[in-house]
């Protein structure tokens, strides 16, 4: 395992508890990326334009890096290119910030062509505003033309832009395919449910419990990067459940944009199943819920949300109800569950069922004939038959989407016995 040193600059008089949580999260991210954290360094001050932290602190960092033989320095605060250059010059080690760390994790998890393109797009979007400075630093000894007018910088930035456009076009065409697949699934009577929530909330565990699947589950951030979809029967309704990438606090807009086609699985769902790790302290849950609301709010349109308070088996009833009440303003339609132990998944399914797109419910009379029986078996496949009785005719209490109801009604009308 590679050895990393974590550094964080806190604003003076900022919330200490929040700072601690952020450092803890950075530690978890480093662990997810395969690093062993050998030291942590914190400084409270306003940002320094050259080093982010103070110059003295960077010199102290350089000594620690040498002493502990660390491979990398990871900053919580976003770093400018000049800051990265200055710090790595002093420490003689590679220096990255939190977003580059997330990109590193994504790069190791990306397995499908789409996810690989998304990761590359995110990396290029991150690099673009820095492209000119990077080349300027790298080529400072070597300047083309009279007084070096920056020919390299422009051509490199242009290359990055061209590559971004090419990837965006490719992703758009993939997204069109996903759109038509989504429409096809809707027309076949499937409702779409997407799991959303902060990273490491237990989305994949819940996915496995609901869909009886075996997608990889780890106590690690960003285990899932590539969405997985499985069909599920929710009280008679066919549902496609999708496990997606988790959210994280302060996710920059370029990263949301890069992963738009994955996040669209959430934004275009009929119901979003928002998963919360209820075993954490209230303030932590609130912060994570806030990050989820912030990521989703501009994109969600007329989507129903059901909140699953996961890991509820780790709390007493009092603790659980206290947390749920304290957070009810952020948690639509809450249900307490334990995905790992399978507690209350039936209540969750019932709640999901209540929020699926409404189907019409009608009473229908079909002839007791071979054609009538074949229609009945089709209706069993396409809708929910609440009640059926066989007498002179077949009387059905049917719930189904409009297309199925219309077809059944026109069949009933066509085959109605003349009176």
């Amino acid at each position: 395992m590679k050895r990393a040193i974590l550094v964080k600059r806190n604003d003076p008089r900022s919330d200490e508890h929040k700072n601690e949580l952020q450092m803890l999260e950075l530690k978890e991210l480093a662990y997810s990326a395969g690093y062993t954290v050998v030291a942590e360094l914190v400084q409270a001050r306003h940002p320094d334009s050259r080093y982010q932290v103070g110059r003295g602190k960077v010199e102290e960092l350089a000594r620690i890096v040498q002493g502990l033989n660390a491979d990398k320095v990871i900053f919580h605060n976003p770093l400018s290119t000049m800051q990265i250059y200055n710090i790595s010059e002093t420490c003689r080690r590679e220096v990255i910030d939190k977003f580059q760390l997330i990109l590193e994790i994504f790069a190791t998890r990306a397995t499908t062509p789409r996810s690989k393109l998304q990761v590359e797009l995110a990396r290029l979007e991150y690099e673009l505003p820095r492209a000119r400075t990077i080349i300027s630093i790298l080529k400072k000894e070597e300047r083309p033309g009279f007084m070096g007018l920056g020919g390299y910088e422009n051509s490199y930035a242009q290359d990055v832009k061209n590559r971004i456009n090419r990837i965006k076009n490719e992703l758009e065409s993939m997204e069109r395919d996903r759109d038509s697949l989504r429409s096809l699934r809707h027309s076949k009577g499937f409702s779409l449910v997407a799991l959303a929530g902060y990273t490491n909330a237990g989305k994949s565990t819940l996915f496995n419990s609901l869909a009886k699947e075996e997608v990889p589950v780890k106590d690690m951030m960003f285990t899932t990067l590539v969405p997985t979809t499985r069909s599920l029967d929710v009280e008679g309704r066919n549902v496609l459940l999708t496990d997606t990438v988790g959210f994280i606090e302060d996710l920059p807009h370029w990263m949301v944009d890069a992963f738009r086609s994955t996040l669209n699985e959430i934004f275009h769902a009929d119901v979003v199943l928002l998963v919360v790790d209820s075993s954490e302290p209230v303030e932590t849950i609130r912060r994570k819920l806030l990050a989820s609301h912030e990521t989703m709010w501009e994109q969600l349109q007329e989507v129903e949300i059901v909140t699953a308070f996961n890991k509820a088996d780790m709390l007493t009833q009092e603790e659980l109800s206290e947390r749920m009440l304290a957070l009810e303003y952020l948690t639509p339609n809450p249900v307490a569950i334990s995905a790992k132990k399978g507690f209350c998944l039936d209540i969750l399914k019932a709640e999901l069922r209540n929020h699926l797109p409404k189907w019409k419910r009608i009473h229908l009379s079909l002839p007791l004939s071979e054609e009538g029986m074949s229609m009945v078996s089709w209706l069993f496949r396409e809708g929910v038959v609440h009640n059926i009785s066989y007498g002179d005719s077949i009387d059905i209490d049917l719930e189904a989407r409009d297309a199925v109801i219309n077809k059944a009604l026109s069949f009933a009308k066509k085959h109605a016995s003349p009176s």
Partner: protein
Amino acid sequence: MPVDCYAYIRYLLYLQKMFNIIAVDISGRHRVDGYYLMVCAAVAASVTADHIEKVHQVHIRSFRSESAPDVPSVVRIMEETVSEIRFGGTIVTEPGDMYNKPQWLVDSMFSGNFKYEESLSERLCMQLAHHISLSARKLLLRELDI
């Protein structure tokens, strides 16, 4: 934990899931023709975590100042606008409107309850207040030929 317990907790939560808020937004915090012409909009609504259930009242008010508003002035402008609202509720704003000051600091300046936007419904309400204040200010500028 038995299934009934969870169902009971859910039942409890069903009973109390509506919140009354007043979303407040100010447009025009920049100098035009030598002074600041601002419009403050307040939207009183009942919301759940993800939906606006009912908009009770909207109130707009214009303010003129020769200097840029600081946090106490923003608080005064908001309180004056909200005083015309007949419904109670927690005042909700965007952190940027309060120069990203910590919530506890701003909360102590208001006479009623105050918080920054958090849930989807609060953000939607803020969006509504923002569009109202922006449109009202545009209308005002047009009427004043500015």
